[in-house]
């Protein structure tokens, strides 16, 4: 596989980190890739402004699954502010790159994260 996808991509595809759901999550973000019809849902658990836990579920190609897994690793333990700095490009780079025609897949991961944070922030506003 390692020739279309980097070893890191294959590692995250084969052993995805943080698959699953969080009940009563602080925030949930879901994005669909209109290009290929894939879907990613990301759950975050925030405590004291820090992302304590994160889980994902993804319906998509190898790149979509790997970027989902990677973004969860990158974000765990980060503050909301730090998490907001994570870009799609950074996720792709952390995976040692993606094939050109697969770059659009990496757009799922950071977008889902940002949506989850947005959801968390909206919920906190309502609560306060």
């Amino acid at each position, binding site marked *: *596989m390692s020739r279309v*996808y980097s070893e890191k991509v*294959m590692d995250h*595809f*084969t052993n*995805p980190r943080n*698959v699953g759901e969080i009940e009563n999550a602080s925030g949930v973000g*879901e994005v669909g890739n209109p*290009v*290929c*019809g*894939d*879907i*990613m*849902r990301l759950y975050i658990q925030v405590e004291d402004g820090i992302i304590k836990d994160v889980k994902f*579920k*993804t*319906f*998509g*190609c*190898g*790149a*979509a*699954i790997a970027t989902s897994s990677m973004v969860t690793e990158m974000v765990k333990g980060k503050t909301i502010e730090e998490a907001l700095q994570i870009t799609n490009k950074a996720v792709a780079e952390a995976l040692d790159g993606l094939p050109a*025609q697969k770059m659009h*897949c990496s757009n799922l991961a950071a977008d889902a994260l940002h949506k989850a944070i947005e959801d968390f922030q909206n919920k906190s506003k309502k609560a306060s």
Partner: protein
Amino acid sequence: MRRVYLDHSATTPVRPEVLDAMLPFLKDEAFGNPSTIYSYGREAKKALDEARAKVASLIGARPEEIFFTSGGTEADNLALIGTAAANEKKGRHIITSSIEHHAVLHTAQYLMRHGFKVTFLPVTPEGLVRVEDVEEAITDETILISVMHVNNEVGTIQPIKEIGHLARERGIIFHTDAVQSVGKIPVNVDELNVDLLSASSHKIYGPKGVGCLYIRKGTRINPILHGGAQERKRRPGTENMPGIIGFGRAAELAGQELPAEMERLQALRDKLIDGIMSRIEDVQLNGDREKRVATNANFSFRYVEGESLLLSLDMKGICASSGSACTSGSLDPSHVLLAMGIPHEVAHGSVRMTLGRDNTEADIDYVLEVMPEIVARLRSMSPLYNR
């Protein structure tokens, strides 16, 4: 790790017997140009004619009706563009189906941009063209009907004979893309009532880069490439001798083995289909159960995306292919599955497995063993699945 190749509709390996036949033409024993008159050239010419006769014999044609091309794609282009150019004074309407290979579909679209009207026939949910639809689509302007014999994705066998009958009655030239049927089911140009038929070598254990168009004697068609007088002025360029010789030998062997191999593969295919359907939930077979080439199985696994499935299969040594947009590099999932009315998300989770000479019952057992786990794992990651 076990390696199981289940993508024979994409391409097949060259058989050893075929390579043996090609080798003299890849050495300085027999490298002549068949258009030259000295001895090397004459030997080449003779070998070329023999290969032509072998390919002709596989499809019940006469040798002089076989025109070698660089593959199935060029044969399809020649059939459509060549016929359109030679008959445009008679009319500018072409009928084809919405599930053709891109070599036909994109060529038809090219002709549309050049003033031809094209009807793309719908198909049934099983992926079959209806003869009545063809009949209704015919107008006084219709000069060509092109419907594929066996579909490359879902393996459906189209009613070519009946469509051919209709075309003949109405005096319309009839082409069939038989790239996926030749060598896999009996093909006879007279029984099928076709005027033009495309075939490709690398789908029947011959080399890549060679194919042919059968042109029934008397069919009006122009060349699409221009140059030397090769292939009786219908296809210029120094002949691909090793390729053509290999194609000839592959055709000969395919003809000899067809009845037995068809039976054997059909049994394997049925075992695969029944095994998958009984072991895994939420899966559907795409394409007709009966009117189906012996080598094809195509499934949609709900809640699973095709490329992930292919990657997982590859890690287990199994090669298959998918109609998912993520695999093809194009933006939409398989146009064939969509034309059959299969929703985007279901088409997205489709996998094609196509059997061939090298597959054994043990291969199928292996696939049936690993497939349930793979699907289960991917479903456990899927936000769409909740059981």
